[in-house]
């Protein structure tokens, strides 16, 4: 269970093309489903199922065609025609560029949002102005601390903390996290995303309420923030998205382990994936690191940290505040 799980691989449900032994005690009937109910057809395919004939691939066919028709007349015309079209396209591009200059749009910039472009428009985070996070003080959502740092030049993640009546006393580490989160220095110009962190007896899964629905699990909160805030945290188009997803799932399962042996299984698996050069290889901290960081920190004290993860853990914890690159 502790191994990496690939998503979306499903087992085969229906097996086609099985040879069904036909009973011989009955009269054979014509195949009424086939278009050409010819005799040969019926004889050739008595099971009604046709398999694809092995024909040469299209590209092979094209190659073959070109080989055979290298000196065909009209080919030169076709080439000149193509060049003409390309030239026209180039002109069109030039025109658009000049229009851009007229409209005072920086022609060197493209409209694609890039990670480092500061977002000055509140529209980016849409109507969502606040998120309520219910977290158990025994399992503080440490990832918020790093999210706040990571997106600090995109969005001000303003955190206000409350203690719910189900909690009578706040443990030290929860209080420390509360202080770090609420005392973070923000820049004034950026849009705000308000997070109300409520310490509540909810158990291991932090809950978060965006509109009317409650979602559970810190990893899912991170997934959500990744979608809402276009930043380093989004991983939809990441080449490692499958790995990231599976690490997130692993962290989710890890947080709900009960025994030491169960836990050590996950630690080994995480160590294998993250320990060596995951960050160096990717060049950035990802949402997976945050989830794993939080999960590991919830379950181990500073001095009990598994050796394999120590270096990685420090790297995530001291993520450079000025640049995303580690």
């Amino acid at each position, binding site marked *: 269970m502790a191994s990496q799980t690939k998503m979306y691989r499903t087992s085969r449900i229906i097996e086609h093309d099985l040879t069904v032994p036909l009973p011989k005690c009955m009269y054979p009937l014509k195949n009424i489903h086939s278009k050409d109910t010819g005799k040969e057809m019926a004889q050739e395919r008595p099971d009604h199922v046709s398999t694809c004939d092995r024909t040469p691939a299209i590209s092979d066919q094209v190659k073959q065609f070109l080989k055979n028709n290298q000196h065909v007349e009209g080919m030169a015309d076709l080439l000149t025609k193509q060049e003409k079209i390309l030239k026209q396209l180039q002109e069109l591009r030039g025109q658009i560029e000049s229009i851009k200059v007229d409209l005072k749009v920086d022609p060197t910039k493209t409209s694609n949002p890039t990670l480092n472009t500061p977002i000055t428009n509140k529209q980016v985070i849409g109507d969502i102005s606040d998120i*309520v996070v*219910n977290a158990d003080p025994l399992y503080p959502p440490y990832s918020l601390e790093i999210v706040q740092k990571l997106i600090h030049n995109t969005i001000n993640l303003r955190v206000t903390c*409350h*203690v*719910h*009546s189900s909690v*009578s006393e706040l443990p030290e580490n929860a209080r420390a996290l509360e202080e770090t989160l609420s005392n973070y220095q923000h820049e004034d110009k950026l849009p705000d995303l308000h997070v109300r962190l*409520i310490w509540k007896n909810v158990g291991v899964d932090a809950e978060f*309420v965006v509109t*009317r629905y409650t979602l559970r699990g810190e990893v899912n909160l991170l997934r959500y923030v990744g979608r809402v805030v276009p930043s380093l945290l989004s991983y939809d188009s990441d080449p490692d998205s499958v790995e990231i997803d599976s690490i997130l799932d692993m962290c989710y399962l890890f947080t709900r382990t009960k025994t030491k042996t169960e836990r050590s299984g996950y630690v080994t698996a995480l160590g294998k994936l993250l320990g060596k050069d995951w960050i160096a290889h990717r060049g950035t901290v990802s949402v997976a690191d945050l989830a794993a960081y939080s999960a590991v920190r919830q379950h181990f004290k500073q001095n009990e940290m598994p050796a394999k993860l120590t270096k990685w853990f420090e790297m995530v914890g001291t993520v450079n505040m000025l640049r995303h690159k580690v």
Partner: protein
Amino acid sequence: MVEDKAGENKSSKSALKKEAKKAEKAAKKAEHKQSNAENQPAATPEVDVSIGKYGNLPVITSEKKDVERKFTYVLDLNKTLSGQTVWVRARLHTSRARGKQCFIVLRQREYTVQALLNVSEAVSKPMVKFSSSIPKESIVDVEARVSEVPNSIASCSQQDVELIVSQLWVVSQSAAQLPLQLEDASRPEKPEDEGLNIRVNQDTRLDNRILDLRTPTNQAIYRLEAGVCRLFRDVLTKKGFVEIHTPKIISAASEGGANVFTVSYFKGSAYLAQSPQLYKQMAIAADFDKVFTVGAVFRAEDSNTHRHLTEFVGLDLEMAFNFHYHEVMLTIGNLFTEMFKGLRDEYKNEISIINQQYPAEPFTFLDPPLVLEYDEGRKMLAEAGVEVGAEEDLSTPAEKLLGRLVKAKFDTDFYILDKFPLAVRPFYTMPDPNNPKYSNSYDMFMRGEEILSGAQRIHDPVLLTERAKHHEIDISKIAAYIDAFKYGCPPHAGGGIGLERVVMLYLGLDNIRKTSMFPRDPKRVTP
């Protein structure tokens, strides 16, 4: 004894029943044998061996000072006292005679214990007969040996011991006919309750309030109410507030003239105070800095609803601040948090007793309390499909809906709504300097019902006069009020709550009459 014979521990009800039957048979057999044995010597006059151990005590007229008996509280009866002989003064809750036995349940406030009289060498037949004839609700003195029971007694609060009675005296006898049965009055209000469904209606309860108040639930409600009052005093005193007492007979209506009681005052007439507002403010103008008051408040509103009384206990406070009225608002918010915490931690037992009869979700709150601006509240309502205008007040249904929305999102039954529209607040409310449509005022809500309405008051006589004119109020009538600020007054804000309403909402009860000991409403001025 039933319990002794029961022998092994069997927990199922049917097993218990079987046991009881067996025991009954055995008891009958024993009785039979005994009677045979008694009959044989024949006609020997029966001597009451228990004479001097039971009967009616003379009325206690404080004749003697010395302590005859040292009483033990029912609450303290437990296994550790097993085997000891104790004296208990309690009410006879129920008694049930069966052959030569009599089971009595003794009650002291919400605590009950089973007592048992068994015909034996020390206890005579007439004594058992006497015990079964004492009317319910009489006060009795009982001398008894504490005895452990093998199977816990589910019907009593002291479940692991019973009392084996050796003396029984009636201290004060109750009338035999009770206008309401305490069992009926304390039956849980569960919707799909099978079995007995007899309840006592509100008016019967209120007409016979002394009896009704004896139920464990009512005992707990008023203990908790006292707690709210005490916590209010303690928390504020710790914050440096001073308790003041304001007059209840006043010469002019403090908040408009409509809902005020007029009383004849010698040759003229006076009014009963609707709120101590003016006097709190005068105390601030007189440099008391932070004041609070606890006292009766009168409202001549002819509304017969579940949440209106014509007389209630007002807990009011007023506080001078330095720069921003949020200093006061957050102090009040914190006061509530501290009170809720105190109730949660110190009144667990009371709350659970009340919940047994009136089930309610436990009261939730946040520390620090949730503060929403009026506009945010409006936005939440709009998302749920209820439009409230920018300068409109919240209607009661909108208030309740907002309470539900807040509860769903933040899981808190208490929250503060800040920055109400100026148009819906009284003339003395300070307008918001940043937006003339809004005011520096706030409401606080419990379970979606408003419990406190407060604001920064205008402390400048010129501005106050201007605002009063704007509201078309006759300046000559409020001259005394305006004059209070003539000689300099610190900026201040405050608010007030109704004790009964806070207790009702904290416990999730459905009627304010359940939290007022002797409620006053348009239709009731007795008892």
